[in-house]
Structure formats: structure tokens, C-alpha cells
């Protein structure tokens, strides 16, 4: 079964890398955006299994984003992604989904 993962990060280059990495594995479907509004819109339209919070999201914006996403999808798993699409991604997703 495919895990749908929504990534939000402010850096366009890292977001592009995340999009490539998340969609490189058949068991994952990655949706990667830079803006909170885009993330909320996606969450309204489709099922999301896991949210990864990437770089550059300030504390206030992160709190607002979490509140809105959880209001749309109570119980949604939201975790911090560290490293920018690097060697930590697989472990983070495995830990969050198992």
C-alpha cells in the first residue's frame, strides 16, 4: 500500500529534491510544497498519511499550520524532517509509519 506524504519546506531547491526522493520509491507518494496554503489545500482534497515539516518554517507559522492540518485531519501524523532530503528521510518515515 502506498503511503502519501506531504512535505512543506520554504526552500525551493530542497523541496524539489524532496519531491524527487519521495516519488522515487513505489511505496511512497510525495506531495511537496513551499507554502502553508498549498499544503492546506492538498489536505482538504486528498488523504494524507504523514506530514513532514521541512526547513524555514518559523514557530508561529508551524503552529498555525499544525492547527489547520489537524483540524482537517484529526490524528494526522506530523513530524519534523531534518537534513533536507538526505540520509535521514527513510528512517524518519519508517519510524513514523511503523
Amino acid at each position, binding site marked *: 500500500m502506498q503511503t502519501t506524504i506531504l512535505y512543506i519546506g*520554504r526552500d525551493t531547491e530542497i523541496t524539489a529534491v524532496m519531491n524527487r526522493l519521495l516519488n522515487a520509491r513505489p511505496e511512497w507518494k510525495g506531495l511537496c510544497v513551499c507554502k502553508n496554503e498549498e499544503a492546506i489545500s492538498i489536505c482538504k482534497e486528498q488523504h494524507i498519511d504523514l506530514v513532514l515539516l521541512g*526547513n*524555514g518554517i518559523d514557530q508561529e507559522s508551524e503552529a498555525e499550520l499544525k492547527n489547520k492540518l489537524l483540524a482537517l485531519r484529526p490524528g494526522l501524523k506530523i513530524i519534523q524532517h531534518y537534513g533536507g532530503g538526505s*540520509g535521514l528521510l527513510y528512517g524518519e518515515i519508517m519510524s513514523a509509519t511503523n
Partner: protein
Amino acid sequence: MSQFILHKENTRGHANHGWLDAHHSFSFANYYNPERMHFGVLRVLNDDSIDGGMGFGSHPHDNMEIITIPLAGAIAHKDSMGNSAVIKNGEIQVMSAGTGVSHSEFNANADEQLNLLQIWLFPNKKNVTPRYDQQTLDVAARHNNFQQILSPNADDAGVWIHQDAWFSLGKFDEGFETEYKIKKAGNGVYAFVINGEVTINGQVLSKRDGLGVWDTDSISFKANTADAEVLLMDVPMELN
């Protein structure tokens, strides 16, 4: 009562990509072991051997303190902050990825193997301005001494990072004994044996073994062989 976790060399994750022979003390890339996710804020300890002229093309990082210690050979580094440098054995490099940085890392020599430790720590503050530094270390100062090579303080010995962590390197004569005092309450220490055999808190460690100790304020150390070389990573045990 102190607690410990022992990671023997042959239990590390291993990936041989031909040009890159990598050993992972903690889960990394396709190596996933839920029991090996981190030791406090220490998230990555990779022991990489890279063929001559080969390396990692430009790739991004964010929100991670990345420390590189060449053990043999030299690494050519270029990054999006405009830094271009070669770091060789006896030096240390640090990069605070913060809001995002791209870099490439290659073996600087075409005909020599590069062996390096790459260590990633979770930062104590997210989204800092990216920064880069490297230092040449006084290798003689680590003879029978834990030489500090990293700290949280810009005016202290070694490079500095955005985390309450202290790294020390030592190279010891056979039979040398000492005690290492943990720098901050709540920190633990992860010892990684670069060469030789040592005993730490009664645990005998061989080359490339790792031992994490916490809930204590010091560890005992003894070198069992000549030229025993150890890296100590004194890190917060609580994730920020």
C-alpha cells in the same frame, strides 16, 4: 547509576556502492534499525571510505550540524555559501545547515583513498543562518590527552556548533589511564574507537566500536594498545 549502549564494529549498517564503502553507526539512507536511531542529539556517525577522485555531487542539507573529520586522505568541499576548501587529516570541518545549504564533497586525490567520519547532530535551534568553518588541529596536543576539537562556544578550543556538545580526540600510549568529565549535566558521551583497543567503564572496545554512556558525570578510560585513538562526543541526551 550510569547506563550504556555498546555498538560493536560489525553490527553497524554497511553499504558498499563500489566507489563508496560506508559504515553507519546509526540508521542512515537505506540502513534502518529502530534500535539505532540516535544517541541523544547525535543522529549520524558515518565511517566512509571513498575512492580516489570520487565523491558526492552537489546536494542540499538543512537544520543539521554536520561535522567532518578526515582520518586519511583529503576531501574537496564546495558549497552554496561560496566556500571552496580542501580538508585533510588533522583538520576538522563544520557546517551548520540551518535554513538550507548545498554542497559537494569529493576525494581531493585521484590516487589515494579517503577515509572520513561524518557526524550529524540535531541543532539546538532551527532555521539558523547557514555557516561553514574549518580548523587545523594541533595533532601533538592530543598525545595522552583528550584534545577538545568542538564546543558550543565560538571563543573555546576547536570549531563551534549550534548545540551543547563537546568533541574530543585523543591518541594514547599503551597502558595510559585517565578520566573524562562530562561537560554539562544531562549530557552523555559516545566514544568511537578510531584505532587500537581501549577499555571504557570496564567495556573493552576495539577499532570502530562505539560505546554510549549516560546518567553519569564521568567515564574511566584506559588504552590497551599502543596508538589507541578515540573520539569522544559529549552530547545532550534530550532532543531539543
